[in-house]
């Protein structure tokens, strides 16, 4: 019997990581941030981005971390997947996060940041013609997600509601 050791590759905040089967990808504590996984299940290859903000035009500095913004992170994610041998027609996506953690009486737009992150990620995926197979977005709870490359399932854990799979 061959024993295959499974590694879980951790994706940080404003980060982007790739994995091949049998490794899994995990990002922890998504609030208003959105975790998006793009994968080619046939080739058993996937990339996960932890996006913090919707658009790089928000950046107040020029040498920003490209993984922080949806409009810069997702092109990197797709390009690198393709460079690693993923097939464009086979790419699929799942996403989670985009919660509104705080309820605040303020006209400040930062409140809707979760929703805006979700919309920005979806817009990017649409531009690449990548279908969204499943999503768990919105609400007011933090989420930890883990993508299992073997099955293509995304495990989602919250503090009080336990674990689900999409």
């Amino acid at each position, binding site marked *: 019997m061959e024993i295959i050791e499974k590694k879980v590759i951790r994706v940080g*905040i*404003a980060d982007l990581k790739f994995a091949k089967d049998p490794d899994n990808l995990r990002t*922890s*504590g998504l609030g208003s941030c959105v975790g998006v996984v793009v994968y080619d299940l046939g080739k058993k290859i996937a990339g996960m981005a932890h996006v913090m903000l919707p658009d790089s035009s928000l950046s107040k500095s020029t040498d920003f971390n490209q993984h922080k913004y949806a409009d810069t992170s997702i092109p990197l994610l797709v390009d690198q997947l393709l460079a690693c041998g993923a097939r464009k027609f086979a790419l699929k996506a799942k996403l989670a996060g985009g*919660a509104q953690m705080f309820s605040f009486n*303020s006209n400040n737009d930062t409140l809707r940041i979760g929703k805006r992150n979700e919309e920005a990620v979806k817009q990017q995926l649409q531009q690449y013609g990548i279908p969204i197979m499943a999503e768990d977005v919105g609400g007011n709870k933090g*989420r*930890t997600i883990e993508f299992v490359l073997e099955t293509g399932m995304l495990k989602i854990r919250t503090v009080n509601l336990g674990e689900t799979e999409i």
Partner: protein
Amino acid sequence: MSFIESLSEYQLDALKEVGNIGSGNAATALSSLLNRKVDMKVPAVRIVGFDEMMDLVGGPDTLIVSVFLRIEGQAPGNMFFVLAPDEAESFVQEMTGIKSFSMQEPNMDEIGLSALQECGNILAGSYLSALSDFIQILLQPSVPQLHIDMAAAILTQGLIELSQASDYAIIIETIINEQDSDSAPIKGHFFLLPDPESFSKIFERLGVPE
């Protein structure tokens, strides 16, 4: 290089000094509330990346208790007071005398939660008013919000403004010590996250060169 990375030791020391003044006020407020001697210290002010910030409170999906305040006025920003659930629990038990208060139950005692929120409010408020007096800038805290959830989920929400300009945050570590008590000291963390444009105002008033 972003502005936070370029802060000097001197500037950090200035922030630490402000922290010690603020926590002195906070300790006094807490002493009268708990009716016992309370001691607070600010051992360090540090600059950390976002992932490191989550690790400081136990990891990104660690359950934390946080009191969040939006700072409004001339130098707007966000502020968190963060406690581990068991520390928050013993804090509430001391404060209210409700020995059965538990963070584990889904329906937590309303009075306990309210006490916790008030405690965060007093600590953060005392800190802010010391800072405000010291630098002669008007800072008004919003009504505090209490959250119990994963660390990264809560804290990143307070990083939205800051993260548009930097990948680093300023952490003012705070330790709360209760004297005449057998229990271990409660270790809390203050996270002061001024909006990017507030930094220069604060340091200008502190009289430290940028």
